[in-house]
């Protein structure tokens, strides 16, 4: 009888505990220069990149990742979405945008010590921040458009000793212990099951992110980091005391317990030896207009030289 009672109590406690346990999803999002729309002023005269001329945007694949997290939240009770972004103080806008679209909260990982980090040093810093949150699932975009390396996700998974599934296109199902998802390969698709904790990288062909929610935008438009408010010379202590949900917390290297030697340039095994701006040497080319006789002439020449036909 006692035995039965204890078993019952144990199960009850376990159930209650589970009920109370939040399922935490970390979404990694990066602010990137919009390299897809590079204008004429993107390069300075000395051949270096004019970062100021490129608008800063939410990395496209990371928006797909956020949508995956939001869909999981819809399917699973008691799920919290925490966005983590690493970048300069102005990258706080990425966290704000994530919250407008449905994320619960976010942290900005920002420190001058991170400057010059390659993918390995970046994955180290991010993995330290993620350890602090201790999530059940990490979702990130496959790759960022400023580098296209697709490395940071798998590098984090390795550091956290987690399984990874890359090129994710669709969540098929999710329960307490595992999820089933489909990934996009070069020549087809593959459906896999995986337990938690785990890391996913989401392919750009996954479902597009839902738009900004107007109600959430009204509620959170004044969400700021401390440094943003300092810059505007506003006293933030009262604002944050009154509305704690408006505080986007900033973490530096020390806050996440990251060793300085593993960060920035010194923590990056890859070095840039040389950067060349692309100068095109003009090839001798024949010019034509779209007039009928010009196109005829072109086709004639191609046929005569046996390039076609």
């Amino acid at each position, binding site marked *: 009888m006692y035995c039965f009672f204890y078993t019952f109590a144990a199960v009850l406690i376990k159930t209650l505990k589970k009920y109370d346990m939040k399922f935490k999803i970390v979404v990694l999002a990066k602010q990137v220069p919009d390299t897809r729309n590079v204008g004429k002023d993107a390069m300075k005269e000395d051949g270096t990149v004019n970062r100021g001329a490129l608008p800063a945007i939410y990395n496209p694949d990371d928006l797909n990742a956020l949508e995956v997290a939001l869909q999981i939240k819809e399917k699973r009770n008691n799920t919290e979405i925490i966005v983590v972004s690493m970048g300069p103080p102005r990258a706080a806008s990425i966290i704000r945008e994530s919250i407008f679209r449905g994320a619960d909260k976010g942290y900005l990982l920002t420190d001058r010590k991170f400057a010059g980090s390659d993918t390995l040093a970046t994955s180290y810093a991010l993995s330290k921040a993620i350890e602090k949150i201790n999530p059940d699932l990490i979702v990130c975009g496959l790759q960022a458009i400023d580098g296209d390396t697709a490395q940071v996700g798998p590098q984090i998974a390795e550091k956290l000793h987690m399984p*990874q599934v890359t090129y994710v296109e669709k969540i098929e199902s999710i329960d307490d212990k595992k999820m089933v998802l489909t990934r996009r390969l070069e020549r087809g698709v593959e459906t896999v099951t995986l337990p938690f904790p785990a890391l996913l990288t989401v392919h750009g062909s996954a479902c597009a992110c839902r738009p900004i929610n107007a109600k959430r935008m009204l509620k959170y438009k004044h969400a700021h980091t401390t440094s943003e408010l300092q810059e505007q010379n506003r006293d933030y202590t009262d604002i944050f005391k009154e509305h704690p949900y408006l505080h986007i917390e900033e973490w530096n290297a020390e806050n996440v317990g990251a060793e300085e030697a593993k960060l920035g340039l010194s923590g990056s095994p890859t070095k840039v030896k040389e950067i060349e701006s*692309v100068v095109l040497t003009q090839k001798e080319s024949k010019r034509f207009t779209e007039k009928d006789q010009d196109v005829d002439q072109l*086709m004639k020449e191609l046929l005569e030289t046996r390039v076609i036909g």
Partner: protein
Amino acid sequence: MKNIFVYCEVTEEHRIADVSLELLSKGRKLADELGVDLEAVVLGVKLEKALEQLRFFGISVIHLADHEKLFPYRTLMHAKLVKTLFEKEQPEIALFGATSVGRDLAPRIASALRCGLTADCTGLVIGDHTDERKKMNYKNLLYQIRPAFGGNIIATIINPETRPQMATVREGVMKLEPQTLKNAPVVKEIDLQLIRPEDEIITIVHRHIEPPKVNLKGAQILIAGGYGMGSKENFAILYELAELLGAEVGGTRAAVDAGFCGHERQIGQTGVTVRPKLYIACGISGAVQHRAGMDQSAKIISINTSHQAPINAIADYVVIGDVMKVIPKMIQSYKKQIN
């Protein structure tokens, strides 16, 4: 020790992937330059035919694991085996195909070994480096060359301190150059006892793999559309011309991203690299990433409304005009002249 390793990807047909054979060809040249050996890592199942293929690439050792667990590719098992092998063998250079397998595996290995990895290289060259600040000289480093930052710059990346120097390369970037058989490679079996139950926690429940549909690399004539094509519907005219000329249709990344054509047709640094007899660039401005994938074409025609489009600079023929007018005229003109 100090050798060059190529992770050889195994295809659905249990053959070595083209990209891996291309890397072995490049690896052989780099090995000659460094005076070291070339070694291959092959993990999969039913590998008899694959091993046959590998006889002609000047490989000294093949590290082999032939077991049904290892195919289809699953991250944790392959990562465990490759990581352990690299820890033991201490390669100087390790090369991976920039495929959904290589891009999944290589960063995991680099992270575990805390070494540098450069993605999507378009050039691999041996060279020296002097660090002025540290007053250090480095001999025979691997220069990993790749376009960066929207293609406005070409960066040369090096890993002075860490080994292996790791890089991924897209299919078609390096030339496939088999050699005459000298000595057959020695096959060394990899110990599968290394795989623990926790390496098998991801299970594949279903796969749907299609036969390769588009053969961009094999096409003699390629007609490629860019963002300037304007829409998916406008791409139809490219297919029409392609059928007439016996050509294949490709697209730039911008065109693929905009949904004008499928991913399998993407040409460029993050797509396929091609070297056709004739390349017709339609509404393509010509970012360096795109040019990296096609600038070795024998003849290039650029059809563009802009005189300033960078693609014009590498074209043999430039037609300034609206692609939607020029292509129908080309079709007409071709039909007329062929009769």
